[in-house]
């Protein structure tokens, strides 16, 4: 699971173009939106693309997406259970 979290952090840094940021700079339990990493609505779309492209996971329910994309921890849990690639 730790390896998956590390991988997700690297993919998020690349997809969202956080220049100079390292995986260790992201707290796995911290919120990705608002006070945490400070992501916004366009970033939600980027994360949905990231999950589909890398793990074959398609999220269409906004409420479910909001719950899954809360933090690296919640993303990793969902990916581990539902990934198709």
């Amino acid at each position, binding site marked *: 699971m730790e390896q998956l979290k590390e991988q997700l952090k690297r993919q998020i840094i690349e997809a969202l173009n956080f220049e100079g940021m390292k995986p260790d700079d992201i707290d796995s339990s911290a919120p990705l939106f608002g006070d945490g990493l400070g992501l916004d609505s*366009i970033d939600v779309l980027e994360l949905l*693309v990231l999950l589909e492209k890398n793990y074959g996971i398609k999220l269409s329910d906004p409420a479910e997406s909001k719950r899954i994309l809360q933090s690296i921890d919640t993303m990793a849990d969902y990916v581990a259970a539902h990934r198709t690639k």
Partner: protein
Amino acid sequence: MTAYICSTAQISSQEPLSAKWFTAPRECAERCCFSVDAQYGGFISPMAARRMGKLLKRAAATSLTALREASVEIPDAIIFGTGLGCMENSEKFLSAMKEQGEECLSPTYFINSTHNTIASQIAGLLKCHSYNNTYAHLGVSFESALLDSLMQFEAGRISTALAGGYDELTPGVFDLYEKAGFWHGVGKQGAAAGETAVAMVLSSEKTDSAKCGLEDVALCCGRPLPEVALALEKFLDRNGLHPSDTDLVITGRNGDVRYDESYTALVDSVFGNSKPQACYKHVFGESFTAGAYGVMLGAEVLKHGRLLSPYRFGTAETGTFERILLINSYRSRDWSFILLAK
């Protein structure tokens, strides 16, 4: 109606966001004038910068610099011209479409691949909710933006405008246009390639910092040269001018022997062969919106009352500068005329 050019800012092959290009320009390299980027940290937050390609960063830096120099916080209009928009991000989007079978595409690259993303993102940066328009008309894109600006002033809808021209050159675009014979090749056919990032603040009021007046703009597209000459004579006439009333003609000569001859023929037919002339594309390179550098040059010549030798073309003696005509063309097909006055 006269609008006034209150400030200009550029990022080009010259020193970025500086006025050194006027007094000590570096000549363009033989085939390509890639721009020298500025430090963008002082203009854009890291969170905003991560979604911006280099052209958007140049647009932000030039726009904010021009606005600051004109002491304008929020303009009444943002009107830009771009030939191809943000090509770096467009290429990324198109490459991803091809490689990923049109699925799982980045929304950021999609947003940035649209032509009007530059003007709209500057509006977002400034929180400017007023008139916002983009002209993507190849070689008359910037001139169309300037024409719209002037029309907005004439209609009384605005009192300030942020106008600009933006185009970037990626290695991919350079190669494609090279194959199409745009850049310097055998027999001096082709120009030196360039990029454009120019912002200027226009005002209906003649402020203390105003460089010059923008008197008139006209386009003449797809017409043979004799008709272009007639259109130019009509343009001067509607401004109450005889050809001898202009003190300098700044042309968009770019060193391409195929098209520079048409500037010679046009200027000679309307003004005779003794009209003082200037050019600028040997310094900034050719791009769809390179005409913005010509306006920048004309504004500085009128402000300072002098034309330095790097920009002179021909041997005609210059006198005082009260009125300058700019003539630009895209491959001798689409022409624009701009009249500036002190």
